């Protein structure tokens, strides 16, 4: 039972990590809490759902879902956030929330309010260990593998590539980076493309895991994502992964051993508050000197 619960926790944590990664990347550079990233999560899942219906091919569905959402991220950056860049961050925050609400109702009007199945068929069979009372879903492996792979790519990109260098420079100080000859516009655009691509992968995988896509599926990620980002230390990708695992594990273990005495999200937020009381800067955030 403990092993099962720990695996449950890792899977839940991985889903959170994937979901929050897009917004973490955007925050890291732009210092904007991009709520509409949770809208991209739903958009990605719906695009995949649509292409799965049309072509019947999981691969086409996955690729188009991620690619089109990434393009969408580029457009959001270009036409929503770029014009607001010199305004107060609150303006961008509100604009992002507005876009998020718009996307939700857009999906409802276009695709209908009902939850629809995102049935990729059995990609990997589930494995049972009756003697250990353990079940491993096939989809879990998919999620764990995708999370690990994407995080590895991200790490390589950030730490071992020229883009990563430009990226880190831009994140540290946009104006100075620009003065040093870095094409910051391109860095920011790439950042959004990647951030929205991540959101789409998360949305599609969650859609497969729960066999459902629905217009309001971004609701919970929209605020859970914030908790993970804040706990991880605002814009720190590694912190986000760690925070996601902590929250996923805490929810699962408390839910599994004590029961859902409170709804699961409430448990997660109690954990968040306790940790922030202990480390106000987040798990891997640096304390700002005043």
């Amino acid at each position: 039972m403990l092993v099962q619960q720990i695996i449950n926790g890792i899977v839940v944590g991985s889903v959170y990590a994937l979901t929050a990664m897009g917004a973490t990347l955007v925050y890291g550079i732009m210092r904007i809490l991009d709520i509409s990233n949770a809208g991209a999560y739903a958009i990605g899942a719906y695009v995949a759902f649509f292409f799965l219906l049309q072509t019947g091919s999981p691969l086409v569905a996955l690729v188009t879902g991620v690619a089109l959402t990434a393009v969408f991220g580029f457009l959001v950056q270009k036409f929503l956030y770029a014009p607001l860049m010199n305004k107060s961050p609150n303006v961008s925050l509100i604009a992002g929330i507005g876009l998020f609400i718009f996307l939700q109702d857009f999906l409802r009007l276009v695709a209908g309010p009902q939850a629809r199945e995102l049935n990729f068929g059995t990609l990997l069979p589930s494995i049972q260990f009756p003697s250990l009372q353990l079940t491993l879903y096939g989809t879990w492996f998919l999620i764990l593998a995708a999370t690990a792979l994407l995080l590895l790519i991200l790490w390589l990109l950030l730490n071992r590539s020229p883009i990563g260098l430009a990226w880190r420079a831009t994140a540290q100080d946009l104006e100075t980076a620009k003065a040093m000859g870095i094409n910051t516009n391109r860095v920011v655009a790439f950042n959004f493309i990647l951030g929205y691509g991540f959101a789409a992968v998360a949305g599609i995988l969650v859609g497969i895991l729960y066999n459902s896509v629905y217009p309001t599926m971004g609701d919970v990620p929209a605020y859970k994502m914030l908790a993970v980002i804040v706990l991880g230390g605002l814009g720190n990708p590694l912190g986000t992964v760690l925070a996601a695992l902590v929250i996923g594990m805490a929810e699962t273990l408390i839910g599994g051993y004590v029961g859902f005495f409170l709804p699961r999200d409430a448990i997660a937020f109690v954990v968040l508050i306790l940790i922030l009381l202990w480390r106000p800067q987040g798990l891997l955030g640096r304390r700002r000197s005043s």
Partner: protein
Amino acid sequence: MKSRFSLSLLILILSLGLMLAGCGGGGGGDKKPAAENKTPIKIGFFAPVTGPAAADGDSVTKAAKLAVEKINKTGGINGRQVELVAYDDNLKPQEAVSIAQKLTTKDGVVAAVSGSYSHTTRAAAPIFENAKIPMIAAYALHPDITKGGDYVFRQSFVGTAQGKAGAFVAVNMLKAKTVAILNVDNDFGTTLADSFTKYFESKGGKVVSRDKFTMVEKEFNPVLTKIKQLKPDLIYMPTYSGTGAQIARQAKELNLGIQMLGTEGIDSTMEFLKVAGATADGIVITTNLNRESKLKATQEFIKDYSEMAKHAPDMVAASTYDCFMVLAEAMRKNGAEPEKIKDGIYKIKDFEAATGIIKGYNKLGEVTKNVQVQIVKNGAFAYYGEITDAEIITPPDK
């Protein structure tokens, strides 16, 4: 200056027009006796068309339109047509309150139907009561909704009765001695879980665990893993389709092998049966729509709704449809003014509706009809039983 002048002129013309229209209406009323009134009868309606319950909002809105169409096709109300005044409450009580105020003060409706959930309907009910305009709650089941007074009715089973019916099924049909409860944490889930527990324990059963979650929860593996260790005979899950489907799927994946009992909350063809797929097979629910009923009203409704919506109807649609049929019956027999409609509803006896024979309404406005027990078989709801026991189906009258 000029534009201000033309604006005043416009206002003048408009107000003159309004006065004339007012006179015309009044004059017409004087000449013709009230019995020959041909103006449409307005019935108010609200449902969660947007927000987290938008799927139910969609079902009930279709059902409301279908019902009004049906009433108008079959001669209207003694020659008068019925007109639907529909609003979206976004599943928010504050929206429901302002809608109720609009319906009762501005729109001139003679009666209203709530196609919404318990917390919204509960907020709106006192406003209809104070305005003395009858309102029927289609499927909201919190007991307090009808307690405000004479003008508020309920078309589905009050939560306490359905919870009891669930426990009756658990004890007598599924022979369960121990149960684990998984309830959605709101008026709906809490009312059902509480009343289930009360009856189940009074018959010697034991509730081994009770867990709650929000209506947007998707991850039940932690709690199902816990329940697996407790080895209950039954899982009772008063919740909605989205969460219910995930419980069914994850229980199957975890090889739980425990019988599950749901409620009308998962009586949804689109969201529950399709998403849960084969994992839903064998799940039993208490509801009010018997798909295999011999009643003409039921079969006609299922046929008409399926043609219109392109999918089989669910319980919320059937309940909403029936509210309008009950209103139509009361208006045809007793007159189409709010007070007469209210009295007319109390007079209804053994009325054939889509959700079965309505035996009548008690002084609280609670309906008495048989509770349907359905089972999921091959991806569809099928007959499993019917509770006719008066002790179970008679709603409380205080």
